[in-house]
């Protein structure tokens, strides 16, 4: 309850901050729509030239675009702004205040900044997923839909865990300002099914920077390609990576000795 109340306070603060830049918000929404238009156009160009991409049809790629935008929203609304704040706070020592407060430090580091207008992206993403699935002609069974939701969630957890480890590295290497660039860079691979990529790239985005776990895999579940055991395995991986990340964070905070004092 405590945590939920804090979250709502964070949200309120961020809404107030963004209200100061209303024109900016409107422009951002328009630009966002423009890029969506471009993404759909690029898919139509691809499917003007081929019937399937990596075995997937147009509807399924639209749904994948929706899943990609879910992850992208997670990044743009939470991860990027909070990384920026965190890196600055390690550099100038203001992380001290975060650690002193009676709130789990990681919670505050993860949620203090929220780019509010990005919530709109969540709505768009859901529309894309529903439209894509219905266009692909597959009636998603309730079981597949549940699996899809579980795996989208666990994929997000894996990416979040990786992020925690990456920013925790800052405790060891203070000048590690580029800690999340690798995540940012490889994100774009999530637009297309991992099956089209050459093996080396597929390995990277599955095991090293597991973008595919959060985009391709959930959609495979929606297509009914995954067995129950595989779903369980992915969930276990997500749980394990979160545990590891929390440990790394704990050790990192212990190493931190403040930049200001």
């Amino acid at each position, binding site marked *: 309850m405590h945590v939920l109340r804090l979250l709502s306070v964070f949200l309120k603060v961020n809404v107030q901050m963004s209200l100061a830049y209303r024109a900016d918000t409107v422009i951002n929404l328009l630009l966002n729509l423009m890029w969506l238009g471009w993404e759909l156009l690029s898919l139509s160009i691809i499917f003007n030239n081929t019937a399937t*991409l990596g075995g997937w049809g147009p509807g399924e790629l639209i749904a994948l675009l929706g899943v990609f935008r879910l992850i992208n929203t997670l990044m743009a609304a939470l991860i990027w702004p909070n990384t920026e704040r965190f890196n600055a706070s390690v550099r100038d020592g203001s992380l001290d205040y975060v650690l002193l407060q009676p709130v789990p430090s990681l919670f505050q580091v993860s949620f203090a900044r929220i780019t509010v207008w990005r919530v709109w992206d969540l709505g768009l993403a859901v529309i894309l997923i529903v439209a894509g699935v219905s266009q692909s002609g597959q009636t998603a069974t309730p079981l597949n839909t549940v699996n899809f939701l579980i795996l989208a969630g666990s994929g997000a957890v894996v990416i979040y865990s990786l992020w925690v480890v990456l920013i925790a590295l800052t405790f060891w290497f203070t000048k590690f300002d580029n800690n999340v660039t690798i995540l940012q860079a490889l994100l774009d691979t999530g637009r297309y099914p991992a099956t089209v990529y050459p093996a080396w790239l597929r390995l990277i985005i599955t095991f090293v920077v597991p973008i595919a776990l959060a985009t391709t895999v959930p959609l495979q579940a929606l297509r009914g390609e995954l067995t129950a055991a595989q779903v369980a395995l992915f969930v276990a991986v997500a749980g394990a990576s979160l545990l590891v990340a929390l440990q790394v964070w704990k050790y990192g905070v212990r190493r931190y000795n403040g930049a200001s004092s």
Partner: protein
Amino acid sequence: MLRIYQRLWQVNWAEQWQYRANLVMYLLYWLVSPVVYLAVWTAIASQQGSVNGLTANDFVTYYMTLLIVDQLTSEITIFVAGYRIQDGTLSNELIRPIHPILTNILMYNLAFKALTLMALLPVWLVLGLLFRPDFSSVTLVNVLIALPVIGLGFAISFLFGAALTCVAFWTTRAWALHEFYSALVVLFSGQFVPLTLMPPPIQAVAQYLPFQLFKYIPIQIILGRLDAPAILASYLGGLVWLALAVGLFRAVWSAGVKRYSAVGA
């Protein structure tokens, strides 16, 4: 004048050399989308033999060349000068007896280009080993013919970028406009696919825009896929656009500097 450029080059090179780690990260970030497009289109082409007459190797060579051409013709003016207008530090440069954009910022762009190209080279060779492009259609003559077009492409994109940045004299921030502009470049420059695969209306419009000089035309010349009349037409078109870009930049700059209020300083 030459001495000024030389000195500014040294300063900007030394300044950016300090941040070479950042540069490698930037390179990585910028590299991914062409590699993704490459993977997608070669997958399609090898699945069905060819796409619209283009084989898998045609796509590999197109995107591998794009990696270099894009690096040569792109510009980052707004990321440098945009901040300086925003926080008022441009004032320091305005009191110098030289044009800040056409000297210092230009050299910043060129030093950045040289450094990123140095970092790109090993990555490019590794990608070459992974994708095994067959560059047999490339001749030295093609490359030499393409160089002036690359120069024109960079000059035009630099002047456009600078003119866009100058909009910040009125609005303090020009990011939204810049994002819109970059969408136009994506659409009409051949960054996503060789322009011949774009929908016909877009191809028709792209003919009359300068953006294809940034990527598509130089790539096609290097790969030997453009005939002499088409090359000549692109030279002429490039010169016309260069004149227009110079005019645009001069107009926006001289009007903008008068409006400049050095907000942050």
